[in-house]
């Protein structure tokens, strides 16, 4: 590199400070503009993604109503409740595995969806991350809380090979979630007071 021998006006102390200030200012201004332009679009994409995920896990519902953080009621076109969707974050191998679970009125799973790495999922690619594969998620359909268990734990689910911790975490999260939210399936819009008391303390530890 020839730069060591080259001395010129760019090496003055004033310009050193000034050039760094200019570069930072231009970068900050540019980035804030990009942020402002893309922000509404990013928020829209995030909302779309949530709606799409809700539709995936509870296909019978025509619309969704957010009841609280991590709990949605699925409504058909007439406005009747056809099921609920809840979010749970069971602890996997490398961190929480964010899972959305759809449940019909008989407390059977209608579908589950697991967050992608871009959404904060930290499981090992090629191992725990395979929990996102269709074959793994489809196994949950139609199961009740007591059936959601790995084969080696006495249930019906095939575990992902070499990723038992993740498989077991998802199964446990889904089963626990169904038990926790099952009272909400029967209640009307206003949850029964004791049902709410049941869920509140548990949620604190999870979020």
């Amino acid at each position, binding site marked *: *590199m*020839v*730069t*060591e021998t*080259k001395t010129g006006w*760019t*090496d*003055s102390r004033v*310009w*050193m400070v000034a*050039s*760094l200030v200019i*570069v*930072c200012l231009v*970068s900050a201004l*540019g*980035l804030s503009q*990009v*942020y402002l*332009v*893309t*922000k509404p*679009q*990013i928020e829209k*994409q995030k909302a*779309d*993604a949530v709606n799409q995920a809700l539709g995936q896990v509870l296909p019978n519902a025509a619309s969704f109503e957010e009841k609280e953080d991590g709990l949605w009621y699925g409504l058909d076109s007439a406005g009747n409740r056809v099921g609920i969707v809840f979010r749970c974050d069971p602890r996997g191998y490398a961190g929480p595995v964010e899972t959305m679970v759809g449940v019909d009125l008989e407390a059977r799973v209608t579908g589950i969806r697991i967050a*992608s*790495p*871009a959404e904060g999922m930290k499981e*090992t*690619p*090629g*191992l725990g991350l395979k929990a996102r594969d269709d074959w793994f998620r489809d196994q949950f359909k139609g199961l009740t809380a007591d059936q959601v268990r790995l084969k080696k734990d006495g249930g019906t689910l095939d575990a992902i*090979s*070499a990723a038992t911790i993740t498989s077991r975490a998802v199964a446990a999260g889904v089963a626990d979630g169904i038990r926790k939210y099952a009272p909400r399936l029967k209640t009307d819009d206003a949850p029964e007071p004791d049902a709410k008391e049941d869920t509140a303390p548990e949620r604190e530890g999870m979020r």
Partner: protein
Amino acid sequence: MRKKPPRLKYFTSGIVLENPLLILMIGLCPALATTASARDGFGMGIAASFVLICSNIVVSLVRRWVPSSIRIPIFIIIISSFVTIADYALQAYQPGLYQVLGIFIPLIVVNCMILGRAEGFAYTHGVIDSILDALGKSIGFTLALGLMGIIRELFAAGTVFGFPVTPAGFREQPVLFMIFPPGAFLLIGVLKSIINKLTVKKET
């Protein structure tokens, strides 16, 4: 009069003879971390390519005004600005692609290939040459990462781009070792030794 250097060489050299990963041995961290599958390998390569091309252009444009003693911090600001722009733009307009690449984008800031090309090439060359250099190195880097992804996915899952290519028996008991970082180290060593063998042959 000085001879004009053959510009096309800046482009072609990056693909094989000066392949960033397998010859220059730079950008190894993403190569280990993100090549567990073919799709991830190519994804990381493409995302890094965008930032490399943009940063090479800007660095070569401003190089005459950059004080040599603080050039590295300035390069890093330029690079991280492009990384952030890529991050926002993908998130806003290509959410599907962001689902795949999102996890790798912050990693590009610490990709030494990009700082390496800014310092080693764009700082001392003009814009056109820098673009050619960036394009060539990008293609070389993307192909090398993709190749690693294909090989590792083949051994560790029996698939390529998610399509099964090996007998079912192998897919049930694959070589899981290849999906972990030690497997990537081993693969880089093997690829490097093959490349060395080939290039030495050419010279003699």
